[in-house]
């Protein structure tokens, strides 16, 4: 089961992202409708478009070679889902003043949970299973780490987080809670 974490600045720019592979099994409740198909984020939907946009310049001689063939999840799709989830997150944000938004959105196999800091940073987590407590704990950890990063006077709300300490601690927390 994989998790995708994005820390988004108030202008929707990702400042940090993390992909975490959890050892927990994926709760597979796929519909018979989709029985013989891969999950959405691994399928090559609109492959022509991808191929055209990606491989038309440099890789012309290996047409199609640059297209991702099966295998891992399409990072682009994951990002699109996280980005699309912002619609609902912003909606909820304006109505309620909770920081932890549990499973605010779902898209295909992904559930989106979010955490909004008082500074309008959004932590968006894409996950497949249910793990409310773990995710809440995880978000609190990330928040604490984020605040510690922001203590740095040279860090603005729009600076990318490149600290390896931050990265390691977030990963540790992810291993612990997710």
């Amino acid at each position, binding site marked *: 089961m994989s998790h995708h974490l994005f820390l988004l600045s108030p202008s929707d*720019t990702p400042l940090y992202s993390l992909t975490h592979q959890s050892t927990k099994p994926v709760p597979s409740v796929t519909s018979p409708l989709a029985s013989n198909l891969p999950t959405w984020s691994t399928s090559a939907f609109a*492959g022509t478009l991808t191929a055209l946009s990606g491989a038309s310049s440099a890789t012309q001689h290996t047409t199609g070679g640059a297209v991702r063939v099966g295998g891992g999840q399409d990072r682009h799709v994951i990002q699109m889902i996280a980005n699309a989830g912002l619609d609902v997150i912003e909606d909820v944000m304006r109505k309620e003043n909770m920081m932890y938004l549990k499973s605010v959105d779902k898209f295909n196999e992904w559930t989106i949970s979010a955490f909004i800091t008082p500074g309008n940073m959004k932590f968006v987590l894409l996950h497949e299973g249910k793990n409310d407590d773990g995710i809440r704990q995880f978000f609190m950890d990330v928040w604490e780490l984020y605040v510690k990063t922001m203590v740095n006077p040279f860090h603005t709300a729009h600076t990318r987080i490149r600290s390896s300490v931050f990265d390691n601690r977030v990963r540790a927390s992810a291993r612990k809670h997710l």
Partner: protein
Amino acid sequence: MTLEVIFTFPTHPPPRSHSPLSLLRPSQFPLAVIGVASCAQIDSLNSLYSQFDASLGDIFPPGGVYPLVKNCFVFEETEGTENLDPGETFPGLIVVPRIMNRKLHIGTLLGVICSQILAEFGVLIRTLENPLGNEYLNATLMPVLPPLSELPPPLDSLSGPDQAPKFPSHNSQPDVSRPSFTLSAAPNLKRNASSTGNGPHQPPLGIQAQKKRLSTIGVSSSHGRLYKVLGDFFLMAGRTEDAMVWYTEAVQLFKNSHDPLWYACTLEGMATVAIIDAWAIGQGLHNSSSTVKEPWTDVSDKLQQAINLYLRTPAPDNEQIHALLAFLYCGCVLRQTSLLFAIWSSKGWGPLAFTTMLRSATKPYVPPTLEDGNWVNLERLSAITGISRSSISAVLTQMHGPWLLHLGQRERISILTSMATFYASLGYQRKEAYILREVLGCLLDLLVCGREEDGYSQPSGIPPTAGLGIHNLHPVPSASWGAVGVRVSESPSGNESILRLLKYVCKVLGINLDVVGLAQDTLKRTSELPPSLNDYDEDIVQELCEPSGWPELQVGVVREAVAVAEALPDFPTVAQFALSSLKMLQSVLSPGDQYHLYSTATRALITAHRRGDARAVEYWSGRPIVSISIAPLPAIRIPLEKPRSIQHKANDLKPLIKGIADPFLYNPRKAVAGKGNTLVVQNDVLEFVITLQNPYIFDLELQELSLSTSGVSFKSKPVQLVIPAGTLHQVVLSGQATETGTLTIRGCFVQAPGGIAREYILPLYTTEEEERLARKRRTITSENGRSKYPGLEGCRPQKRSSTTTTESSAGTFTFRFLECKVVPDQPLLRIRRSSVTHGALMLYDGEKSTIRITLENVSPIAVDFLHCAFEDSTIVPAQKALAEGNLSVFETYETENSLINNPVFSWDQEEVKVIAHNQNFTLTLGCFGKVGCTNGTIHISYAHTHDPQPQDSDIFYLRQVSYPLTVTVYHMLECSKMDILHFPSYGTSPSGTDNTTKDRFSTLRIDDDDWCLFSLEVRNTYGAPFDVTLERTQDGEATASSTTTIPPGSVSRLVMTIKKILIDEALLSKPIPTLSDRQFVVAQSSLSHREEQAQRELFWYREELFKCVRGRWRETGGARSGVLSFRAQRMTLPMLEAFRKEIAHITLTLCSIHELSEVPYRAAQFYPQANEFVQLTMKVTNLTSSSVVFTVDLETTPLEYVLHEGVLTDLPIGHLQSGESREIATSLCFLTAGHFEISAQVRGFGASETDNRRMARTYITAVVGSG
């Protein structure tokens, strides 16, 4: 009771692949087809009918059940056309005569059609009712009925003990008894709500159904499906009560058996019945809001149940059936969504909601209040209805899943489109953008597939970008013609919509693809427009704006947009997209992407140009110009502006001294004055250095770069250039100003290949301009940190509106540009030759010589003014020392003296004639060797002063030509040990009888003791001998000189007698003068009055000394000569004493008391006798120019052997006029024999004993004999 017929007019017939749905979802198919034909007199009905039949056959498969009724209305064009053959009858062909009341007539005809449909329903049911039909119905998951003709007619005997007999009564009733107008619109209504157009049906084969069929034909099959079909038909016929009855029956049966698909369809039908009932009743239901459950929850639950059932339907092995299953599932989700959406958007369950659901557009109906997407309005709807937008979105999301891949292309597009529309209406733009991206992907799949199939696509690996299908006109290439390419013109219709879609998706993700515009005209220049502040500031605003959006997604979506535009193909748009994204995303694009986008754009522009596309892109790459400056002219061409008044002024020394005499370290006025307009000369070639920048990683090509000027006319040629990647690059543009006046350089025109020229202005960075920019930056940066408004609407448009308001307020701002003043044509001189070899001048210290410079006028204009100015390396240090002010007064004088009186170069201002075109003129300049001078420059200013424009006459323009020289000055004669000695007179008969001495005395003409001796040592440190001459010129004395040859390395002492002088008190009291009229000279000395007096005295006597003694030298055996300067020598107090004449002249004489006997006097010695009184007579003469009161002090040594009368000190002499003498006498007696010295000291009254200046001394020696 009014009845309504509701029609659906599908634009396409249901696809053939949907035929398995014919029984499962009859509402999917058109029940009736009405052809409309117009009939003129000549047309024959026969042909019309066959035409109708043929086109019908095209659309519908021959074996299908639908359409149930096919009619063709033939409208008569003219009234009473009787040529139609009434004898011939065609089934379904109805002639509509041209009568007055056509509306009613057509209504009646439609009624007939409806009744026909109902009758057909009956027929269909009757077929299904019989066991065989029922078996067909239960045979597969999505059964298909064979053509009716193949089925045996219904036999009562075959029908078992079922409820079959019941149907006919029920069934036939509506057909027969009801008036034809009661046709229900229900099926259509249902389909409208679903809004998915013509959907497919699922054709899965139910395995257990097959089994059933094999084991027991007809009998054991459940009647669930039959009841469901019955319910469908009742629903379509508008009899909702009956439909509900049959649906309920069916549900009972489905609950026990395992047939989830049909069960789900039944539930959908029941939900539809509920909606139609509510619609039919009208507003009545609105009152029931008091109940706990909203009225629609039941419907919604049913639909949700259906959705779940669809999801659980076991996957069939047939791909086509699978696609239909997915289609049904999606349709059901859409139905559920549109139910919730309709209720939400029409503020609750009510007539408006029903109307919304009835609308037959693919776009969900959005009430006008929602169209602005105001969040508050959206939320208000949620508050009223209790349906949150996120819940609608959650329902809609169920539709998106891997099963979309099962769907056919067109169905997928239509489903995704509806999904996007719902999201858009909900205000979820990002989700909409995501779905739209998938829609684009599907469209592109179709596009590319279609192209590959049409046989025109390229044979080789040329990407589908080049939409030109080139193929050979002649399949067999003939040798004479070669291959001729033919382009199949493609229809661009629809491209616009796809591009709009792309732009929208990009806009949602924060990229404005229109930022680089497309325009038609490539030649237009916008120089007439006043420079716009917004345009100018655009770059600053852009560079400071904080990044927004998701860079990785932006890059991806932009690449896709470019690819799509390329595939369409629409080449100008490709370029527009690529360049816009380069401009917008420059900071986040990777080098590869930048390069890709740029090369794509370049390629596309070339292709577009080749194809004659008139559109061109605007200039895009930000502000390319960093700075513009005028390249400095070569020194000889620089014109200088001077006031006319200097034209006839003599050589002025002030500037020489004043060189850097500015008392202020920083003089703002000077800085301003220095920044005056650059002067350039008309018709001279001007060069402008333009610094360009390229922040991208690829070489930026500019097709044209030219200056944008205003003011006087300016000729210049544009250049084409390539700015290397990631650098600042300098180019030189040259041109000529053809008029006099002011030339303003506003900026540059730049034009990229295939683009439109754009002007970039470049104002001067004046203080106001800098202030304005700084303010702008502050405004932006202060806004940057704030993220008050979340969401897409929040960050972007807010900022823009605020900036526009500030800009409009500052609209009156005017720029200042680089300006230069163009002056009339000027003459040009050049140095043709000079007498100095290699520009190096060798001089001895103090040498005086001349150099000659020949000038040539190379311009057609005559020179009538010439002026020389000089500069050498000794001037600057001296000026600096003077300016620092640390020199003593004396040193200051010396420095100034050397600057003014002994310049290295000098020019005696000759009368300058006019130098005409191509004429030469020779200048002769004097040189003076000054130690320490290493180089010098001769500046020759010249002008054509004759001014044709008298109004401008207070200034004229000069040009300068400079001649630099290297100067070497050898220091060969060193003076030292200057001294002035007393030169006492030893009487007319000196003791020595040496003739030579006598001769020398006589040559020196010492006949007086008013002389002193000047001596100086001169050392020759050079390698050649020099003749050195001392010269004396004194008033009233003959000129004397003495010459010595000094060999190399030796020292000679030069001696010269000079007459003592006495300088007036009045002159002595003057301070040491300054040669320049420098101001602010503050006496820094802390000398006492007396010291100061002494200093002045030294100074003035020294000056006087140098006036009367001069040194000259001459190279022995050579032609070089010069002066020997003593100015480095110091004058000391003893020297002064020796040089100065005393104030009084004293003569001491000893004589005997008795008049008769004189005291013998020999060789300046008196010989008196001891113990005899002698008289000492003192004669004092006043030598000063004023009258003085004198006293005299006498002293004898040894004193103890002398008797004297009275006191010896302060003997009064009295008041003496100038030149007056007086004698006084006193008596002495020497008591013993021996040498006595008697000295007298005359003092002016009041002078102290130490004041040497006011004293005069003399002494005599008395040798006293004993007897």
